[in-house]
């Protein structure tokens, strides 16, 4: 089954991908150009065989991507010796690998992201059969080299190793074509390159933060076999000594794995809610329980309408949603009513459910953070918050009762991945909607008088994790807020005001005169304008300002912790603003 993603939007800006290789990749360029899936990619093949010079002096823009696909025997000369049956010293192999790895690491500053393809060998390279996995055997050395390369690149924030073997498997036994090699200096047949093109597009989409975030699932004959309302929970096919039951259990396992990676789960099922919940809660082999789902609509309403509600409840756009249902009529209905929702064709054969889910590349992500792993719990906590909120009459009373705590911390290696993820994924509360790679952010911070803080939020219901970013740039007597980003999970809880108050306190400590912010409108960041308009700042169109001689009040009832050190933006003078909300002024009115 082909794994669909969204088709390209008309007018979508093309991403430039430099193809750096020691063989001819022109066919891959064609596959990328003629693949209609989003994002649009323009391939720029570098002269093949010029891997090192191209990496060290690329003719690229920092927003460009690069693919580095090499043949192990070309890039690691010692490996070619091993293929020729010569004894090779592992020290030599390691030195050659390090040279290649160092070159990649040096090149990362030139690109938004670099994709490196893991090394493979054609099936006909048997390496003396039984000796292939022994000392200096080619297969053993290849495994080692790939592992060493993975280790070497492990800590790079913008280099990703892609699994080339998967593309060969997809193409089958003729993946390598000696004829094409002799005719065109391309070792792979076109099917391999088509598979590579699909994975590359998914990888670029992941780096750009446009992966899907919510999986909406039907229940009967999707999560388990049978109609629970008809046969009862004791007669559902799930687990047990039954091939179909085992297939459903494996499907649930695959869904749980997505959940553990931070993909939100929701239910859209036509059922009696109490009966469906009883099955989720009481079936002895049920792996997914009600609490694994961030939201649910179990009723007899139109599923498209239910999906819209689910997306709204979870503060997500429909372009973040994937819907899986065994019923082709329901799939067609949702596809027609909600074209932004991805509805994969689904096999009738239940034994193919888990593998079909595994083939979907729309959930690919560039990293998994601690926040991802606990995202479903955070949404469950949010649901609890909403229930508690409903019992309290005023918004102020509610905010006081929540016992919110905010911790500010500086940008560091420890929070880098999550900061970059939040910066690239957040749409609604985002002042300028800058999308930057880790390296680009690092470069930006190291130029001029610039600072970035991350904010962690918790309350009596749970820990929302790192959910806010504020960066600013100092120019003369003015500090300008550049990034003002907040996860929708903590919006409307006065954390916005805490962040602004921190920036004001910081600017005051530096003796600056004014704090400014400029709102850049997008199709999705209206909530950010709404906040800034009510922030108390002076406003001229989309520009906001605050005189730093005046303190900005921390909102009441929120405990704030952290130190905003100013040493690197103040031209060498170490200044610290110890955050202290105990002297809070009365809350500004909304």
């Amino acid at each position, binding site marked *: 089954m082909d794994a669909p993603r969204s088709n390209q939007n008309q007018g979508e800006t093309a991403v430039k991908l430099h193809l750096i290789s020691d063989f001819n990749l022109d066919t891959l360029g*064609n*596959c990328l150009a*003629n693949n209609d899936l989003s994002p649009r990619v323009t391939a720029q093949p570098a002269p093949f065989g010029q891997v090192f010079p191209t990496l060290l002096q690329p003719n690229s823009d920092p927003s460009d991507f690069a693919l580095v696909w090499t043949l192990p025997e070309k890039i690691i000369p010692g490996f070619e010796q091993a293929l020729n049956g010569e004894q090779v010293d592992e020290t030599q192999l390691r030195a050659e690998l390090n040279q290649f790895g160092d070159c990649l690491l040096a090149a990362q500053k030139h690109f938004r992201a670099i994709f490196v393809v893991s090394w493979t060998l054609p099936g006909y390279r048997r390496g003396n059969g039984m000796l292939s996995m022994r000392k200096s055997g080619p297969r053993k050395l290849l495994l080692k080299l790939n592992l060493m390369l993975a280790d070497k690149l492990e800590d790079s924030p913008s280099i990703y190793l892609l699994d080339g073997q998967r593309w060969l498997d997809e193409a089958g036994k003729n993946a390598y074509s000696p*004829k*094409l090699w002799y*005719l*065109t200096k391309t070792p792979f*047949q*076109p099917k391999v390159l*088509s598979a590579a093109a699909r994975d590359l597009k998914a990888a670029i989409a992941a780096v750009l933060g446009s992966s899907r975030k919510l999986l909406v699932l039907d229940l009967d004959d999707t999560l388990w076999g049978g109609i629970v309302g008809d046969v009862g929970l004791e007669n559902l096919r799930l687990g047990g000594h039954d091939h179909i039951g085992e297939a459903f259990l494996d499907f649930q396992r695959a869904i749980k794995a997505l959940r553990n990676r931070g993909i939100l789960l929701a239910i859209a099922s036509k059922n009696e809610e109490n009966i469906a919940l009883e099955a989720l809660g009481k079936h002895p082999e049920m792996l997914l329980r009600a609490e694994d789902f961030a939201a649910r609509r179990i009723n007899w309403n139109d599923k498209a309408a239910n999906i819209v509600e689910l997306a709204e409840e979870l503060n997500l756009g429909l372009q973040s949603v994937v819907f899986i249902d065994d019923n082709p009529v329901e799939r067609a209905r949702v596809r027609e009513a909600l074209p932004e929702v991805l509805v994969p064709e689904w096999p009738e054969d239940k034994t193919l459910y888990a593998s079909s889910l595994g083939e979907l590349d729309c959930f690919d992500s560039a990293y998994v953070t601690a926040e991802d792993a606990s995202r479903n719990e955070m949404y469950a906590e949010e649901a609890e918050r909403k229930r508690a909120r409903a019992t309290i009459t005023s918004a102020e009373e509610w905010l006081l009762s929540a016992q919110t705590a905010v911790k500010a911390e500086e940008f560091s290696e420890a929070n880098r991945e999550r900061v970059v993820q939040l910066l690239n994924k957040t749409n609604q509360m985002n002042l300028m909607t800058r999308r930057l790679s880790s390296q680009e952010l690092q470069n930006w911070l190291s130029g001029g008088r610039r600072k970035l803080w991350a904010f962690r939020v918790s309350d009596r219901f749970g820990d929302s994790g790192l959910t806010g970013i504020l960066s600013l740039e100092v120019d003369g007597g003015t500090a300008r807020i550049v990034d003002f980003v907040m996860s929708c999970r903590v919006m409307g809880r006065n954390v916005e005001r805490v962040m602004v108050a921190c920036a004001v306190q910081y600017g005051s400590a530096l003796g600056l005169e004014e704090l400014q912010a400029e709102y850049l409108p997008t199709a999705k960041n209206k909530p950010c304008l709404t906040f800034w308009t009510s922030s108390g700042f002076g406003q001229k169109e989309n520009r906001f300002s605050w005189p730093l001689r005046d303190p900005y009040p921390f909102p009441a009832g929120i405990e704030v912790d952290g130190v905003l050190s100013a040493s690197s933006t103040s031209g060498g003078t170490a200044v610290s603003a110890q955050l202290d909300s105990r002297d809070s002024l009365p809350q500004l009115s909304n």
Partner: protein
Amino acid sequence: MNVSVTQTPQNGASRFDHVLKVIYASVSELNQQLPKEQRIEQTPATVLFGDGGRLDSLGLANFIVITEQKLDESFGFQIDLTADDPFSSATGHFRTIHSLATYISDLVTRKTEG
């Protein structure tokens, strides 16, 4: 598209039609990597390579490999489409889909009838 070996026809005319189907299946696979305006029409008269042809030498090489594989799947034996220089205008068997089908049918006949 896989054309089953059990359906392989024995007489000349139907063998030609069978080869044509294999070529069309190869064209269909190749078209997936070609820009819309360069996609190859599935008609016997379509010019593949040379003056007015849709394929450059890289495209032709890819087409050859795809077609050889499909012929192998269909007839159950390997057919080398590069034994006579495919890029030469003198041989010209890759000029049109019809000329290619004729060329392949002859190769198949030679293979099967010794």
